[in-house]
């Protein structure tokens, strides 16, 4: 399948989602800066994908995080936790006040998400490569039980260097699992530098195709493309689906974009101010604290 462009989505809906995505990014930079810990680059690159999932595509109920028929989301790239917490608080799973505790002792918001500490986390992740296998297990069990919900799993490109990802890819295709959609946050940068220099994963879309997955490629910052692909993926039968989302590491913060230095470095006070200005944060309804 090729790139997705058209959708019946209204302009208002796109506008609404883009505003939410901006709020997510504002939460991300504030949370990480205040904590002095966390991973801004990947939390910013995933923000539009998470917004599309939690505010348009997924069937979830923040009032009933354990609702058995909810769609499931697994953040396999667990270091994107700040982005996940931001989307969960915006969606109403917990108070934004909690974001101020991120990464601190006794906090429910671990730097890598812990399922037993906070509602809305399906499974604890952080050791790369493990989330997709768990998502596959959920999907297989759901099929066994005749459940019709869908499982989404967000993986990273550096994470795709883990062998376990490809074990899971093979198994999902073998079992013709079509209630599972993977999204690859293909931001092209990992901790020590560009993915292409550290350990090239390209041609990654071809790799998934050769594993017998349905593959779509989108601009991971174009809300319409993301949603169209995710909705198409839900209709694919007989094979699992991956949306390769081309993203920019540190998206929205000028000095972070494309820079490996911001994989795991928190911005200081001055840098935070510049980030908030870049993102246009601080306007009504976009602040916490």
């Amino acid at each position, binding site marked *: 399948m090729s790139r997705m462009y058209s959708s019946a989505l209204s302009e208002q809906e796109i506008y609404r989602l883009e505003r939410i995505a901006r709020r997510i990014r504002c939460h991300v930079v504030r949370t990480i800066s205040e904590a002095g810990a966390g991973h801004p680059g990947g939390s910013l690159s995933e923000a539009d994908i998470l917004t599309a999932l939690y505010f348009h595509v997924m069937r979830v109920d923040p009032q009933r995080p354990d609702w058995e028929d909810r769609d499931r989301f697994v953040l396999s790239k667990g270091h994107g936790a700040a982005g996940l917490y931001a989307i969960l608080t915006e969606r109403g799973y917990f108070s934004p006040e909690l974001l101020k505790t991120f990464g601190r002792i006794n906090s429910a918001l671990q730097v890598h998400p812990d399922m037993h500490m906070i509602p809305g986390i399906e499974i604890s992740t952080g050791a790369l490569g493990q*989330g997709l*296998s*768990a998502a*596959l297990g959920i999907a297989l*069990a759901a099929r*066994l039980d005749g459940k019709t919900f869908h499982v989404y799993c967000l993986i990273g490109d550096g994470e795709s260097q883990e062998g*376990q990802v490809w074990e899971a890819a093979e198994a999902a295709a*073998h079992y013709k699992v079509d209630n599972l959609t993977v999204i690859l946050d293909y931001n092209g940068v990992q901790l020590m530098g560009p993915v292409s220099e550290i350990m090239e994963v390209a041609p990654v879309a071809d790799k998934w195709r050769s594993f017998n997955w349905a593959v779509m490629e989108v601009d991971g910052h174009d809300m319409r493309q993301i949603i169209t692909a995710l909705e198409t993926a839900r209709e694919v039968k007989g094979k699992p689906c991956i949306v390769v989302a081309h993203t920019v590491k540190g998206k929205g913060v000028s000095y972070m974009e494309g820079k490996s230095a911001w994989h795991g470095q928190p911005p200081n006070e001055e840098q935070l101010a510049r980030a908030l200005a870049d993102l246009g944060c601080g306007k009504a309804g976009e602040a916490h604290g």
Partner: protein
Amino acid sequence: MAEAVREAFGHTLVQLARQNANIVVLDADLASSTRVVYFAQEFPERFFQMGVAEQNMMGVAAGMALMGKIPFVSTFGVFASRRACDQVAISVAHCRMNVKIVGAYSGIVSGNNGATHQAVEDVGIMRAIPHMVVIDPADDVETEQVVRAVVAYDGPVYLRVTRDVWPRVSPEGYNFVLGKAVQVREGKDVTLVGSGMMSSQCVEAAHILFQSGIDARVLHMPTLKPIDVEVIVKAAEETSGIVTAENHNIYGGLGSAVAEVLVEHAPAPMKRVGIQDCYGECGGNAELLCKYGMSPQHIAEAAQSVLQKRNSGC
């Protein structure tokens, strides 16, 4: 007549699955060896062949447990513990998933497959993983009861299952209780503590010692974690020393677990029989136990040296 431990495991799993629809089995292409093939034949829709890919298998099991399944993850002990160690730690144990990991062909007696297939460190690895319960049953009767008990228990379990037939140590009317040791033989001079198939070797060692006028107590310790502290302390207080015997490296397994209890609660002379920090090789079970210092004779000699240590005051 005792049957092979793997047979007892395979048949019991089928019996339990008839009553409990949540039991699922994941296999890494070893079902005919581990005997989960019986489950696969009767419940093909609940049997998941995951191929030779143990890391993914462990994570898939964790995902299934999230959905209320009781996954039995079946492979050889070496692969369950070493190959998939991080997945066991993070996806299963850290998440406190109700996954039952079954390490088959455990220890040095692994069906003449040699060093690559002999799990000599699996207990050490699994015991060090928080939340993990570790069980090493002795014989067919106990294995059946243990499988029932781990289904009833909600949480991650590592269950060692040997391949072959071992002399029964389970007494008549035996009832396995998680975390509890079994006194197989009364005795006042020295205590032999075994786990897994080594408990039957301890019973034989006790007969050898009896001929030399030494009255050995034999304890079988099926649950390696949580360990039965009380029974170890009692043995240290009532007998003159302790010998542990395990189908595992002497580091990290039963010997270490017992030593940890003794040093904190009741220091006593002690010796550890087991694999002496090396990898194994091919050979028959009796040949391997003999060559690697794990035969009843070796256990008896260790007991005598513990008693000498006590008598000489060293």
